[in-house]
């Protein structure tokens, strides 16, 4: 076996096989535990069998509830809106970072504040947000935004600052205004990296989403799993968790695909 061979070259079949290995193992372990628990107690709720989970998932996704709604889709849409609106606010984080990285006055004004703001644990702000903005959508979107805003700003700031001075001089000698240098030379160059950072922060955004929904909400993916927890409804919780992870994974893959497609110029040795 080549597990301690630095130069090993597993073939494609081997790679896929190994990649799926742990998924399978987890699955088998789960089934084994579920089976043994159900042998002792057919009504066990803690480790539902697959059949129960499929039933649970089917009932939330394809059967109307008391309010004549398909719960899963309503929850998904509500959560998606919250994350989506927060993501739109990140445009301002990128622009702020860009300006801070290029214009010294912006840097002087914002940098210290952002560095401090970045250290404030966003979850600790949650009660303040609920008191200030009430229990509605505003405070949830605000939490998600505030949670990742400074990170995105500071990341953009560093990337803009790292652009070679030659590029800026070059732009000036070609007659570019300072704004054109920011928006036509620097921003397009750092954009793929900034999008990568946003991609890596999806996880944090979902974390803040679920925290906000768990505390106060009447709809949403996070709200639902914390609600049904009271009834030990693992047959709902587990499919929801898998569903959330899958959505996040797909969003991540989609953005990664977009970056690769859209920014073909981004290869090593550019410049």
């Amino acid at each position, binding site marked *: 076996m080549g597990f301690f061979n630095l130069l090993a070259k597993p073939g494609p079949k081997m790679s896929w096989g190994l990649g799926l290995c742990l998924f399978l193992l987890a699955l088998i372990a789960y089934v084994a535990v579920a089976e043994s628990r159900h042998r002792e107690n057919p009504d066990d709720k803690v480790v539902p069998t697959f059949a129960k989970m499929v039933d649970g998932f089917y009932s939330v996704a394809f059967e109307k509830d008391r309010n004549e709604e398909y719960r899963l889709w309503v929850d998904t849409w509500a959560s998606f809106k919250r994350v989506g609106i927060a993501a739109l606010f990140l445009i301002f984080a990128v622009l702020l970072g860009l300006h801070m990285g290029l214009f010294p006055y912006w840097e002087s004004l914002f940098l210290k504040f952002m560095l401090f703001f970045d250290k404030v644990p966003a979850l600790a702000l949650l009660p303040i947000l609920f008191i200030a903005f009430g229990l509605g959508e505003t405070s949830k979107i605000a939490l998600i935004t505030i949670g990742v805003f400074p990170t995105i700003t500071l990341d953009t700031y560093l990337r803009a600052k790292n652009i070679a001075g030659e590029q800026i001089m070059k732009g000036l*000698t070609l007659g570019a205004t300072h704004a054109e240098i920011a928006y036509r030379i620097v921003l397009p160059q750092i954009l793929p990296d900034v999008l990568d950072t946003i991609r890596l922060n999806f996880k944090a955004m979902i974390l803040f989403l679920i925290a906000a929904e768990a505390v106060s909400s009447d709809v949403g993916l996070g709200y639902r799993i914390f609600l049904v927890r009271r009834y030990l409804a693992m047959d709902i919780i587990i499919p929801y968790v898998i569903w959330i992870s899958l959505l996040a994974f797909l969003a991540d893959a989609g953005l990664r695909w977009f970056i690769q497609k859209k920014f073909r110029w981004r290869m090593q040795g550019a410049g």
Partner: protein
Amino acid sequence: MSSDFILEFHDVYKSYDDLSGTKLVLNDIDLQVRKGEFITLLGPSGCGKSTMLRLILGSEKPSKGTVMIDGLPAEGPSRDRGIVYQKYSLFPHLTVLDNVIFGLDLEQFSQFSRYLQPAKYRRERKKHQERGAAMLERMGLGHALYKYPHQLSGGMRQRVAIAQAMIMEPKILLMDEPFGALDDNSRTDMQLFILEQWERTHMTVFFVTHDLVEALFLGSRLLVLSQYYTTAKDHNEGSKIVTDREVPGGFPKPTSFKNSPHLKELLNEVRRSGLDPEFARHITEFDLSHRDAMRTVTPEEWGNGQKEQ
């Protein structure tokens, strides 16, 4: 106000503040350059070659004295001075053609007018593309119009960078060791390339290099900037122009110049003029034989109280 000279330095000093105090880099530089001249600037490392270039570019201001472009004091970098760096001259996110026409586009359309007059923008952009493509074609880059910089070799990139600067028809083309990162073969190719471009356009070029042969082969006029010199004063700080001369052998030179017997003599002579710390010349012995050479010196430097103009 117009002037015979496209570029002038009058009593220019440049110093920087660092931890140990103020350090003088350029000490009383005077220079007059006529239109169409191909200046090569040589100097030992740390002599302030690039500082001098930045003063012309306008990205830095002299501590004392004035730098004039076409009779007017040099203001911050602008489109009347083009520049080619050793690296980072091209925009990595634009294709070769877009890199070259970037300046033309900017000239006609502001950030927003592109979107307000889309039809006009498309029409003008088409014209720019044709002009850029024709220029690249002439430079032997017709096959690379839609490639990105990272897909090109070092030499090709520098060609594109030269095209990008030249299409703006700057008053002066500044070049900061543009071929320094290339291997010998592509370097020779590029030297011939830049001379061809000069023959076609007779542009004024200010070419900074640390390669002696390159400086002698390319330039019509050679400047040596050096911190190795002596004056009547005990202590000297900052570089002066120690050589300002026509390069013998005509201009532009044939490639055979690189193998000619008197090149070696010439090399030694230039080396002894101040490139080597062992051959520091006295201020009264500088080779300022070019017809446009001029300088001012202080009586303390000169020694016996006379002042040469």
